[in-house]
């Protein structure tokens, strides 16, 4: 079994050069983004089927009057969660865990149901209309199999994106946070050591996770949490509907259903044998139709 691997992305070192985005697109042969202007240097927009790395330009207010806004740059990527929401809901088993403990979408198995897209709390997965499949970062699975670092980590010029064995990345992250705390950067924190059982892509943040479009630790919950409450509510509704049906459909002094269609149960039974097939009882508002009685003893119970 290969060793579990991980990314540690230090946002304090990111300069927003987007070399990671370019390297990712080049290695994975992802299509170009359509040319469009956005009100930001962030012209990628979001992670999706064609963008497996996305450098976020997070605008934050400062206390300096002449520079009221500062950027925090963060190279976002699939988190390859230990407890992955996408993998949990995938109905086709197209999403699997690799020998490197990363999460991988098998393109030949995925049939494009898009359940994983609604499950991923990070908005990582996109739908490729050309292939008809869901796509996301593969952790450069092909490179890992050949003992190469993922393209993004290889290209990062500031070593903001670090790659290595997961345990080592956790140590590096912890050391870095403690260094920053010693330097007075008390807001520095690690994201990804607790969420979803531990992420394979951890981040060093200088603000609360929500500022980087990351769910808080409390919000990092799996879709399956709603299975039991959802089915229980449906079951209670079914019971109430059953009671409603019993009240509405119960026999009110009417004829009972016959045990044999040819014996009178079905009002327009094709059987000619008679025996009480009710012949179009007259409609009576209020529920008690005056249908004729079937032969004695043929009922299924009293009304």
């Amino acid at each position, binding site marked *: 079994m290969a060793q579990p691997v991980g990314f540690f992305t230090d946002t304090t070192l990111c300069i927003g050069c987007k070399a990671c985005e370019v390297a990712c697109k080049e290695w994975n042969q992802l299509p170009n983004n359509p040319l469009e202007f956005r009100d930001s240097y962030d012209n990628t927009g979001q992670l999706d089927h064609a963008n497996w790395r996305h450098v976020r330009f997070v605008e934050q207010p400062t206390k300096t009057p002449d520079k009221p806004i500062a950027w925090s740059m963060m190279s976002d990527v699939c988190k390859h969660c230990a407890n992955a929401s996408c993998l949990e*809901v995938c109905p086709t088993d197209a999403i699997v865990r690799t020998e490197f403990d990363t999460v991988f979408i098998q393109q030949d198995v995925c049939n494009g149901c898009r359940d994983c897209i*609604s499950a991923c709390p990070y908005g990582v997965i996109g739908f490729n209309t050309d292939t008809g499949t869901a796509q996301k970062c593969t952790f450069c699975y092909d490179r890992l199999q050949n003992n190469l670092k993922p393209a993004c980590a290889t290209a990062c010029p500031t070593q903001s994106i670090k790659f290595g064995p997961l345990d080592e990345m956790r140590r590096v992250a912890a050391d870095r946070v403690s260094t920053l705390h010693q330097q007075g950067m008390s807001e520095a924190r690690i994201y990804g050591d607790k969420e979803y059982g531990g992420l394979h892509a951890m981040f060093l943040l200088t603000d609360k996770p929500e500022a980087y*479009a990351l*769910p808080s630790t409390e919000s990092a919950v799996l879709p399956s949490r709603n299975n039991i409450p*959802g089915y229980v509510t449906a079951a209670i509704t079914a019971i109430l*509907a059953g009671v409603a049906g019993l009240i509405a459909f119960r*026999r009110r002094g009417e004829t009972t259903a016959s*045990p044999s269609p040819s014996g009178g*149960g079905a009002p327009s039974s094709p059987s000619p044998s008679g025996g009480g097939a009710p012949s179009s009882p007259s409609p009576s508002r209020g*529920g008690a139709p005056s249908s004729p009685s079937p032969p004695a003893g043929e009922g299924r119970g009293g009304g």
Partner: protein
Amino acid sequence: MPNEHFVAPPNWEWYILLYFFFAGLAGGAFVIGTMLRLWGSAADWVTSRIAFLISLPLLLICPILLTLDLGKPLDFWHMLFNAGTGAPVFKTWSPMSLGAWALLVFGFFAFVMFLVALGEGGYVRSRALSRVGRLPTNVFGLVFMVIGAILGIFIAAYTGVLLAVSNQPVWSDTWTLGGLFLASGLSGAAATIMLLSRRQREATVTEPKLMEADRYFIILELILIAIFLITLGGLVTKVLGGAWILLWLVVLVGTLVPLLVEWRPRWSRQVSPVLASVLVLVGVLALRAVIIFSAQA
């Protein structure tokens, strides 16, 4: 308090909306047909037969819509069998996986009861069909219908659970959707059966009972809508805000007007029962539309 997630929309649109709609009607029709057999009188069998006769055609639309919605429609079978090994894929914790199997199994029950209804009603002259038509008259037949009805309940309800078992804001922030879709599916099925049974004179005896049942289903639906909105907390503006309020108005018209018509029959003079049934169906569709689309907007 709702969780804060940053989910991309899966772009489930018209095919899924129509699938949810028809699944609710198909499952609901089977359930109503079974309830009429269990608790109704002999005169109710005609309406019960109509319920079984519509359940299968409505159900058959469902896999077509689901398949069309897939990115790779020809790989629809991956929902049931592993593409590599051919082994069945059955994930109890994935409503989509469960739903795919439930559609298949419920399809069998709906098909058999369709044949039963054909045989029993004498629509097709065949000795084999008339034998099948006797199925509901014994204990085995009743057990068969009850199992089918349980599957019908699942088919009508699981679509709501499917939405909830996600991290999509709105859908995943409430536990009501399974029950809500079931109640509205039953109401829609009752309305459909009422519409179709008006053509059969023998079935009109059951109409008051169906109206009464529909009244209860609508009340259940309204209660669940209220709980749904309450459970959303601050997210309620996402489903009620902007143009979505218009769809909610359609939902209200599709529930309150039929409810009043069915409760106070003298209203029928102003609003015909046919119109009331149509309003119910439009309301059922609008409810699913507003829940599906507003969360992804």
